[in-house]
């Protein structure tokens, strides 16, 4: 059933409408929310949302509970290929929890929080931006990790990044929900403005595995990947020091050794190499720059160090 979460009049003959699909069956009271589309340029999750809805409709008898799918929290951004909210240039994921008596966007954010709150679990799916490609991963802050890790391990991701909390992130959807008792996992995968079917399928398998463990799905599921669990200190950041055109020499998902060449920053005007970019540590390249033009400081890669601070292996609730 398609439901309207909130709607607001736009200036000329149109409403900003946030919709969700509620798919329900059986007697189980548990509810899972799949949330996508806060950033208008992140489209990987559109495929994921469709996959889940398609599977549930074809096999509704295997569902025992409620699945709410929110494919587009920022419909105006998706429509106009805009990451933030058009007109305001605001990052919607910095406006939560919003306010019932606030501006248009604040009231929209508040209504979304109200609608999701109380779910047994929420999965907020992101897909990087147009600049970086990401391996399917789950991110969480240290304070939430004790609660969220058991669920994250079921989601069939390659790794789980537990990072330090930052005050500025307190305005995100995930923080707002977690801090009010609705367990929310943030998935990152792929690249902006594109759909990578493989990643969509991977997280799809993970979500059905999670639902099975929660007693909401009676169908077959795949054995989830055993993710690497990383603390913040085990991630190496590679930023460009030069400006130019970045051409990688490694592939996404490669394991590299410290000082291996990751790529070059080229100067097409002079036909020169401006910078030879090297790995800052041994490990897995889980983030790689997709958009080639760079300035000094542009993020080129993130490398996951496999050492005594990282933990291999999944688990059960």
């Amino acid at each position: 059933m398609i439901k309207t979460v909130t709607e607001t009049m736009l200036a000329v003959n149109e409403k900003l409408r946030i919709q969700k699909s509620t798919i329900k069956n059986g007697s189980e009271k548990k509810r899972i929310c799949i949330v996508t589309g806060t950033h208008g340029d992140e489209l990987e999750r559109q495929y994921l949302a469709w996959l889940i809805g398609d599977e549930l409709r074809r096999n509704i008898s295997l569902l025992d509970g409620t699945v709410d799918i929110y494919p587009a929290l920022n419909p105006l951004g998706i429509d106009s290929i805009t990451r933030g909210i058009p007109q305001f240039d605001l990052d919607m994921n910095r406006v939560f929890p919003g306010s019932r008596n606030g501006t248009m966007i604040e009231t929209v954010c508040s209504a979304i929080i109200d609608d999701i709150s109380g779910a047994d679990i929420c999965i907020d799916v992101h897909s990087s931006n147009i600049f970086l490609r990401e391996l399917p991963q789950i991110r969480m802050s240290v304070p939430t990790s004790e609660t969220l890790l058991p669920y994250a391990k079921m989601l069939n991701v390659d790794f789980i990044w537990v990072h330090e909390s930052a005050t500025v992130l307190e305005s995100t959807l995930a923080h707002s929900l977690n801090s009010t008792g609705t367990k929310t996992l943030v998935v990152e995968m792929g690249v902006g403005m594109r759909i990578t079917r493989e990643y969509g399928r991977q997280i799809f398998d993970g979500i059905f595995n999670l639902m099975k463990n929660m007693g909401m799905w009676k169908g077959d599921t795949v054995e989830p990947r055993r993710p690497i669990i990383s603390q913040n200190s085990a991630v190496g950041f590679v930023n460009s020091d030069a400006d130019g055109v970045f051409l990688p020499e490694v592939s996404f998902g490669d394991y590299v050794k410290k000082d291996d060449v990751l790529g070059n920053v080229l100067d097409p005007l002079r036909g020169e190499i401006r910078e030879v970019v090297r790995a800052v540590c041994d490990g897995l390249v889980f983030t790689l720059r997709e958009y080639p033009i760079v300035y000094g400081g542009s993020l080129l890669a993130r490398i996951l160090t496999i050492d005594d601070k990282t933990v291999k292996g999944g688990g059960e609730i």
Partner: protein
Amino acid sequence: MKKEILYSLKSPYRDNLDVIGCRFGSGKKSVAIVGATRGNKIQQMYICSQLVRTMKRLEKTGKISPNCEILIIPCINYYSMNIGKRFWTMGNTDINRMFPGYDQGETTQRIADGVFRKLEGYEYGIQLVSFYQTGNFLPHVKLMETGFTDPADMERFGLKYGIVRKPRPYDTTTLNYNWQIWETKAFSVYSNETSGIDDVSCSEVVAAILRFMYSIGAITEKSVPGYKTEIINESDIYQIRSSAGGIFRADVPTGSPVEQGQVIGRIIDPIDGKTISQITTEYAGTVFFEYNQPLINESTMCFKIIV
């Protein structure tokens, strides 16, 4: 005046982004003033340019106090200004959400870091800012309440209103907030324009900043008298949001006194021209902010009234 490059960034195909600072006087770091951190803040850059012009005159006539150094940065992000963008040219990130910056971080973090290093150590910091939503408002000074800066210091500007804002999580990466964490008493000054030029408002803000500098003893030339500043908590300002979408017409200009129950604006159906919403104020007061775009969505802040 010493004009210097405070931070420089190379680009593959453009001239370097050279952040220019104008220094006046010498000795103790007294006041730093920052204009446009975003590409649409033309008025804020313009105000700084007029301040630089005035400060040059004051320097030439010996009216900058001894042992006082004043730094003015009219524009940080002119790369975006030159191509009509608000945020950073490539990643669309906001430099004013990157402070205190990080020299090994991403491009805008590096710019913020490079500039912030030059802004540290000043006793006072003034940032010329704009409201994220377009509209007309009365020039005012705002303080982000961190416990470091005394709200009473806002009176030194002689603007009609001084607003105290309780910081939200997204404020913690602004220049104003970080200035205070690094022990500079910081103020944000709002002029009634952003992407255009308003000469009246510019003159008012330039006079306010000169008044402030005279009050702290950084300059010796007395400025024109100002107002007795009324200090208000931001949360106490009465806000009116639109109850419909359509064509917006304001019936009163900013600064007007209004009566309780007075109709101060209308929303008109864009198709049949009928008034679909009359905007009335529940309180008597002064119109502090007024939305100024022809089209308005529902739940948009359209008036703020100081009661």
